[in-house]
C-alpha cells in the first residue's frame, strides 16, 4: 500500500481523554505508533487497555483529544467511519466469529461487502489466508465446530483479508486453553516479522520480548511507562510497573 506520509506515525493519539460516567478511563493519552511497529500494551485489570484499543477504531468514542490513522482524523459516524475501520483490523478476546456463517464466509464477508471484491477473488484470497494461519481444512465448517485456538486464527485471517494498515489485538489468547496459546502467538509473531503494524494488549511476556518494539505500561487510565521490552522487563522505572511485573512473573 502506498502512502502519502511515510515519515509520520501511522497511528497517533494526542491528549485523549475518556470517561465512563464518573470514571476517567483514559487520561491524557499521547501515543504514536510508526509503520511496522509492534506495541504491546500491558497493565493491571481495569487500567484502560481495552478502552484504548477500542478507541483506535472508535468502537469507543472519546470525549477529548484527537486520534489520527495515516494522517486522517477518525470520522464521527457513518460511511466515513466504516471506511476507516476497514483499514484497521481487530481481533477480540472472545473471537467473535460470525456464528451463522462458515469459516470461509467469515473471511470473505468484509472483502465482498466492504471492498466490493468478486466472490471468486475473495474466496481465493480467503483460502490463502486460512492456509497461512493453518486452518484451511476447516473452511466449510461453522465456528462452533472449531477449537478456540482455531477460531482465533480464523479471526486473524478475517482481519487480514481486509489488508489492514494496522491490527489491534485485545487479549487474543486470554480465553484460550494453555495448549492453544502458542499456535495463536506463532501466527502473530510471523505477522510482526512480516512488518505488520500492531497494537497488542497481552500479558504474554514471551511474545512481548520476541515480537514487540515497545512495551506500553498502563495504570489507572494513564500511560505510566513506555520502553523497549528488554529495558521494561529488566529495569522498570515506576514503582507501579515493578509491582505489576513482580505479580505476573510469579505465575
Amino acid at each position, binding site marked *: 500500500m502506498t502512502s502519502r506520509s511515510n515519515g509520520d506515525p501511522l497511528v497517533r493519539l494526542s491528549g485523549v481523554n475518556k470517561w465512563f460516567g464518573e470514571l476517567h478511563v483514559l487520561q491524557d493519552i499521547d501515543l504514536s505508533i510508526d509503520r511496522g511497529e509492534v506495541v504491546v500494551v500491558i497493565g493491571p485489570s481495569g487500567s484502560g487497555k481495552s478502552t484504548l484499543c477500542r478507541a483506535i477504531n472508535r468502537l469507543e468514542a472519546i470525549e477529548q483529544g484527537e486520534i489520527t490513522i495515516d494522517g486522517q482524523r477518525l470520522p464521527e459516524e457513518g460511511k466515513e467511519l466504516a471506511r476507516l475501520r476497514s483499514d484497521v483490523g481487530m481481533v477480540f478476546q*472472545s473471537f467473535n466469529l460470525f456464528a451463522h456463517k462458515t469459516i470461509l464466509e467469515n473471511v470473505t464477508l468484509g472483502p465482498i461487502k466492504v471492498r466490493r471484491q468478486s466472490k471468486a477473488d475473495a474466496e481465493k484470497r480467503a483460502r490463502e489466508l486460512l492456509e497461512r494461519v493453518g486452518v484451511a481444512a476447516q473452511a466449510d465448517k461453522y465456528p462452533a465446530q472449531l477449537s478456540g485456538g482455531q477460531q482465533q486464527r480464523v479471526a486473524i485471517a478475517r482481519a487480514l483479508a481486509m489488508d489492514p494498515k494496522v491490527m489491534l489485538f485485545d487479549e487474543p489468547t486470554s480465553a484460550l486453553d494453555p495448549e492453544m496459546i502458542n499456535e495463536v502467538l506463532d501466527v502473530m509473531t510471523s505477522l510482526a516479522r512480516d512488518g505488520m503494524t500492531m497494537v497488542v494488549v497481552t500479558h504474554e511476556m514471551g511474545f512481548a520480548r520476541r515480537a514487540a518494539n515497545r512495551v506500553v505500561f498502563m495504570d489507572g487510565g494513564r500511560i505510566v511507562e513506555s520502553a523497549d521490552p528488554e529495558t521494561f522487563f529488566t529495569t522498570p522505572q515506576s514503582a507501579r510497573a515493578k509491582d505489576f511485573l513482580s505479580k505476573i512473573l510469579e505465575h
Partner: protein
Amino acid sequence: MQFYVDNFGLFRDAFLTTLSLSLLGGLLALVLGTLLAAFRVSPITPLRGLATFYVETFRNTPLTVVFFFIIFGLPQIDFVIGFFPGAVLAIGLYTAAFVCEAVRSGINAVASGQAEAARALGLTFGQSLREVVLPQAFRTVVPPLGNVLLAMVKNTSIAAGFAVSELSSLLPRLVNANAGELVLVLIGVVVGYMLITVPSAFALHRVERRVAILR
C-alpha cells in the same frame, strides 16, 4: 354434508378472503415490523423515537379502533380506502408493532460481539444488521414470531365488522338463514381457520428446526 355442498361457494370465498387478509397483512407486518426493529436499535435518535412511538401507539390500541380509524377516520382527511385494502392495512400496521418487539428481542439476544466484529470490519450499520445480526436474530425469533402471526390470523375476524366477507362473517349470515345448522356452520368456520393455522404451525416448526441446525 348436503349443507356444505349447498354453501360451498360461500365457504370457499370466505376462506380465500381470510387467507388473503392473513398473507397480505402478514407480509406487511413482517416487512414493516423488521424495519421498525432496525429503527429501534439504530444509532439515530429520531428514528429510535419514531419507532418507539409507533410501537407504543399500536400495541396499546385495540385492533377494532385501528380498523375504525383507517376505514372511517382516514376518509375525513380525504384518504378513502376500500374495505378489503383497509382491513389489510389495519391488520398489517397493528401486527407490525408486535413483530417489531419480537424481532427486537431477537436482536438483543445476539451477542454484542457479533455486531462489534461486523463494525470493526468496516460494515456500515445497515450492512452489519442485514448480514450479521438479523440472520441470527431471526433464529431465536421464529417461535415468538409464529405466535404473533397465528394471533394475527385469528385477528382477521375483526374485518367482519367492517364489511369484509371473511370466514367469521359466515356465522351470523348462515345461522340466520339456516337456524337448525348452527353446529355445522361453526365446524365449517373453525375448519377454515385451521386450514390456515395448522399448516402454518407445521411450516414454522420446520423453519425452526432448519435454522437450529445451522447454529
